[in-house]
């Protein structure tokens, strides 16, 4: 359904993505894991054109885009088929929860106010926030804000939702409620591309795990393969940090 081909991206001569190829099928939940600074978020942002890749192609089943020759119209078309959930939620601060979900439906999809309201109500219900319709972002907890932003993405009925470390800015008590919502969405058949550091969650909900290091995909496969029988030494090494419990570092005297 979605294929990325040979994606390259550099920031000031520093190459972040060194040729990424990735295929995602309809209904897939693909999770990208890997050390920080390795280009996971950059890759996700390239899919949505929030970053402009230097080279490469993105292809949907009926629509192709070469990053070296993009028109403004193509960018909008790409963005209207994808939706992004940000680490920092990025809700519109001057709008209430339901207005946040309605806004793009009215402005971008040209829906009537009534239709947008009903759709928004449905999606906010789905993320468990039917009682917070008229709350402003400043009146919501981080977890609630993130759930509103998930509802905002869902309401656009995109072909794929991109999650960029959706729980990294949350305190541990609030992580669970957001993961539950994502889990439930994943099971309802929505195609997802997710970047996260929540390893056990990734193992649980993903249909495919992609391990990235230093701008390249090192290994990809079903969770059972990556987490239990990984073929690459680097993958094993990275995951070993999550399997062991915390041990206090003591210096011998």
């Amino acid at each position: 359904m979605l294929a990325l081909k040979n994606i390259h991206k550099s920031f000031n001569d520093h190459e972040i993505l060194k040729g990424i190829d990735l295929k995602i099928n309809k209904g897939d939940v693909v999770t990208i894991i890997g050390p920080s600074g390795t280009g996971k978020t950059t890759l996700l942002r390239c899919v949505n054109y929030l970053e402009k890749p230097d080279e490469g192609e993105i292809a949907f089943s009926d629509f192709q885009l070469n990053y070296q020759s993009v028109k403004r119209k193509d960018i909008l078309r790409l963005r209207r088929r994808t939706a992004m959930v940000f680490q920092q939620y990025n809700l519109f601060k001057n709008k209430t929860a339901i207005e946040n979900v309605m806004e793009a439906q009215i402005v971008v999809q040209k829906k009537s106010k009534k239709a947008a309201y009903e759709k928004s109500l449905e999606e906010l219900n789905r993320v468990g926030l039917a009682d917070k319709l008229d709350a402003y972002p400043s009146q919501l907890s981080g977890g609630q804000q993130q759930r509103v932003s998930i509802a905002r993405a869902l309401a656009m009925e995109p072909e794929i939702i991109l999650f960029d470390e959706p729980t990294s800015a949350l305190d541990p008590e609030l992580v669970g409620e957001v993961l539950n919502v994502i889990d439930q969405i994943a099971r309802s058949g929505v195609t997802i591309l997710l970047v996260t550091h929540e390893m056990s969650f990734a193992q649980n909900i993903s249909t495919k795990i992609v391990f990235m290091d230093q701008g390249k995909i090192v290994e990809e496969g079903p969770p059972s393969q990556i987490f239990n029988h990984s073929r690459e030494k680097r993958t094993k090494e990275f995951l070993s940090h999550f399997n062991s419990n915390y041990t206090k570092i003591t210096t011998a005297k």
Partner: protein
Amino acid sequence: MKMDFGYMIKILPGFISVLPLTLVVILCSGLFGFLLSVLVTGIRIKRVKIFSPLMELYISFTRSTPILLQMLLVYYGLPVVLSLIGININNWSGTLFAIATLVLHNGAFLSEILRPAYLAVDEGQKEAADSLGFTSFQKLTRIVFPQVLPVALPGLGNALIYLIQDTSILFIIGVVDIMGTANNLISNDFGSRQIDVFLTVALIYWAISYMADKFIKYFERKTARYHLENGLTR
């Protein structure tokens, strides 16, 4: 020296008759100055090549020279500059030069209010709008402007008050507005009733500024709901 209220009331109609002129100058300068400042702000935020550094220069000059000097430069300089490209404005009235000065002055000053207000809307919200497929124009009108406005309003209100006070120098280039009328009165009386005249003028400026202030406060209240983002209540 004693104050003569009877005289103050007697000269009031003379001031009222030139009040429309002062108000037109304020309105035109405020409106076109604001539009110019939006353009200047846009150029600086988009970092348009060549133009952006030129705008920096223009703002720096405007902020660093007295407005009286700017008006004299426009009055004597603008016809010379425009004649170089074949435009003759020698038949312009003093009022037009005054408005031109105030528009240029406010174009620079207001952009220094708008730019930080624009930057106060965090990048994340602009990215969110992008990611949802908003066009640049939709992003500006639906998401950015509504949040820029409440941040910029107090600054814009102050600028309006300054603009009103700045019109008091127009008599220098021969505009017979409120101050011009005052000067005529004084020279007719050989300066014998200066205090009465200036006090009347002060009260008129006070009244205009007071109403302008109320007008701005009304808008601030209207947009107060947007301050919720800062945790302030309605």
